[in-house]
């Protein structure tokens, strides 16, 4: 059998939602080997595996397009800050691989070394010393995995089911363990050796840092005005065919500053942090924008959730241009959750319901965006960025 293709016109989808539709198309099914929406004619071209059920795939595509179709209420756009900067025209990704500053070790998994690793640590250092310290944040340390019950309380399963990397041990049965080890010894490991041998799944790899903060404070009544916490965590998000370079990894590192407490305290801190994010972008001379955003909710009620989030300005993102990929990635997000997590985990402040907010730094993609914009040689970076990097290296 030979490969087949489908052509589907994408109509009635707002231009601003095309990128989110393209992202979601990665989850149509395993029989889709490639796809692209042609910006010229608005036609979605889908490459199918031999023998794929065309009608089933066509229906799934139609359902996804409906999810992103234009709505009467629209999507709020708000640009808080924008800055242009001269960027290099080099294949930075290839250079990173050739210098061995990056080695790919699996889908969306990388090892960083050299200047890439140093830059990542410098960004984290700035996140801690300029942001967390400014708010008097307490450091917390979180486990790499998270209880599924916690994710359920956070509504993560219903909002982002596509992200999850579940973990489970082999069954605690000496015969199962011996059979597994013997099978590997007699051949080599393959995923089918896990079939019928896995225990119940109770954990997933943490998709986000701050969930641990809320579950750790379950049932607490905080002293007013509340707490500020910082933590760094290796997080996992499975994103199908969307994984690429360092801009969309499956395993990545997130630094967060989190506020939980009285609304005035949390809202005020977030507003201050928003200003600090813009100040950082100015200082480092980044080619970027700071704008209202929404999560890529993977649900049929995407439009209502995303639009409400935008209307409330509950999510803002510092987006950096990646010149080589003709796209922009969010490197810092600022999120206000209102009472969602306080309510889910029964957290109060002085007896009243607590609200929460956080800012999250995506460290690998932040480092990659900087290298993509300004190249691998710090001497060619904007002055403020270069100074901060040199100061970090001299510590």
């Amino acid at each position, binding site marked *: 059998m030979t490969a087949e293709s489908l052509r589907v016109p994408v109509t009635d989808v707002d231009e601003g939602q095309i990128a989110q539709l393209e992202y979601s198309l990665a989850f149509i099914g395993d029989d889709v080997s490639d796809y692209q929406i042609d910006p010229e004619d608005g036609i979605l071209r889908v490459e199918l595996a031999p023998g794929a059920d065309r009608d089933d795939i066509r229906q799934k595509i139609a359902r996804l397009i409906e999810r992103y179709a234009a*709505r*009467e*209420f*629209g999507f*709020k756009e708000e640009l808080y800050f924008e800055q242009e900067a001269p960027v290099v025209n080099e294949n930075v990704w290839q250079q990173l691989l050739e210098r061995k500053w990056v080695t790919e070790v699996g889908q969306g998994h990388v090892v960083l070394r050299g200047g890439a690793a140093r830059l990542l640590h410098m960004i984290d250092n700035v996140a801690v010393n300029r942001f967390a310290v400014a708010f008097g944040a307490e450091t917390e340390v979180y486990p790499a995995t998270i209880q599924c019950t916690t994710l359920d309380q956070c509504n993560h399963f219903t909002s982002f089911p596509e992200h999850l990397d579940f973990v489970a041990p082999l069954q605690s049965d000496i015969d199962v363990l011996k059979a597994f080890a013997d099978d590997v010894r007699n051949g080599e490991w393959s995923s089918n050796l896990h079939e019928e041998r896995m225990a119940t799944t109770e954990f997933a790899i943490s998709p986000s840092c701050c969930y641990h903060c809320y579950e750790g404070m379950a049932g607490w009544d905080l002293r007013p005005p509340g707490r500020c916490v910082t933590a760094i965590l290796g997080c996992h998000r499975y994103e199908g065919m969307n994984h690429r370079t360092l801009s969309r990894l499956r395993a990545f590192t997130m630094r967060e500053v989190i506020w939980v407490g009285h*609304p*005035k305290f949390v*809202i005020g801190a977030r507003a201050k942090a928003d200003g600090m994010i813009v100040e950082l972008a100015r200082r480092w001379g980044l080619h970027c924008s700071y704008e209202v955003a929404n999560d890529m909710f993977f649900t049929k009620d995407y439009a*209502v959730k995303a*639009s*409400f989030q935008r*209307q*409330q300005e509950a999510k803002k993102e510092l987006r950096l241009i990646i010149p080589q990929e003709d796209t922009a990635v969010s490197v810092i997000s600022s999120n*206000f959750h*209102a*009472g*969602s997590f*306080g*309510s889910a985990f029964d957290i109060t402040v002085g007896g*009243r*319901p*607590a*609200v929460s907010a956080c800012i999250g730094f995506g460290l690998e993609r932040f480092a990659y965006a900087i290298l993509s914009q300004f190249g691998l040689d710090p001497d060619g970076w904007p002055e403020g960025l270069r100074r901060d990097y040199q100061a970090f290296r001299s510590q």
Partner: protein
Amino acid sequence: MDKANAAKIIESFVRQRFQVDQDDPDFDHDLHLFDYGYVDSFGAVELTQFVEVTFAVKIGDADFFLYPLNTINEIAHFVVQRQQGVI
């Protein structure tokens, strides 16, 4: 129905349903009910149903995005305007 009376009725519902203390110093008619954590997304559905039934007005999905409906005063203003056919 004038705006002040509508606001009192909405306040009474919010206080009772979402267990707002009578002496809560934050709570007033201009307080952002969602930002301040008094009403979450599920509570918003209940509040919408209460307003629709009590004031005999229809609130569509688009209204949440076209009009500010975050405070008691904003909701009361919307109710009066809709009853009068202004919006």
